């Protein structure tokens, strides 16, 4: 079973010609500035912003003929699901690792608090690995 070696949320990912990834602006805290006279944000508000989740899986001997599915799930601070994505990961011969870029077109800002990102690995419909979640904090602040 492959093991997760990188799991981050970031602003931009650059993949060079040889397939090497560079991660730009790792997300820790996102501050959204709200003018005092602005109407209250809907709890499901998003900002149209492209960002991405990057994962890298390191293969182990014997993984060649197995099929795995990466399940990415993102939750609002109130615990409800914001999005889910599933990607099949396959071992490319002679490559030690597989990297997955999950682009997301909008960032959830409606609720201040911790946005939780969960990644798990499924094989034959069964969850075989669940990573510790990572968090991006959303702060509502004045302009």
């Amino acid at each position: 079973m492959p093991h997760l070696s990188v799991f981050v949320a970031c602003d931009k990912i650059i993949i060079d010609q040889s397939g090497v990834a560079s991660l730009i602006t790792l997300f820790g805290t996102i501050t959204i500035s709200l003018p005092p006279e602005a109407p209250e944000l809907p709890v499901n508000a998003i900002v149209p912003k492209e960002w991405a989740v990057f994962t890298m899986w390191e293969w182990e001997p014997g993984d060649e003929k197995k099929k795995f599915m990466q399940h990415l799930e993102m939750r609002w601070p109130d615990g409800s699901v914001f999005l889910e994505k599933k990607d099949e990961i396959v071992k490319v011969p002679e490559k030690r690792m597989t990297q997955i870029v999950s682009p997301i077109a909008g960032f959830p800002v409606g609720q201040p608090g911790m946005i939780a990102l969960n990644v798990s690995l499924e094989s034959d419909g069964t969850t075989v690995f669940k990573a510790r979640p990572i968090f991006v904090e959303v702060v509502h602040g004045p302009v």
Partner: protein
Amino acid sequence: MRYRCPVCLFDRLPYPPTGYHICPCCSTEFGNDDAEFSHLQLREMWVGSGAFWFFGNPPANWNPWMQLVEGGHPEAIPHFQTNLKSEAATRIEPRLIMPGASPYGLLAET
């Protein structure tokens, strides 16, 4: 076959957006509402009234704003923010890891 609503961009209509079909998301009646108003006007009306789901239960994890962004109309989203700033969660303490080591000549490969 699935169709996309030209008003709210919901992309799972089971029928084409014509012939008096009604979008379950934004309630547009095609051939009636869009005979009177443009799709842009109807979209603005839907967004202005809160962009709520119209009929029955919305699909799991449905978000009207993501639907507009993924449908190619991010400009339809109300301008919730004036500024979005990312900050590191940790303080970075620069350290010289290998004195004298050159960063050149390294080749990364996955």
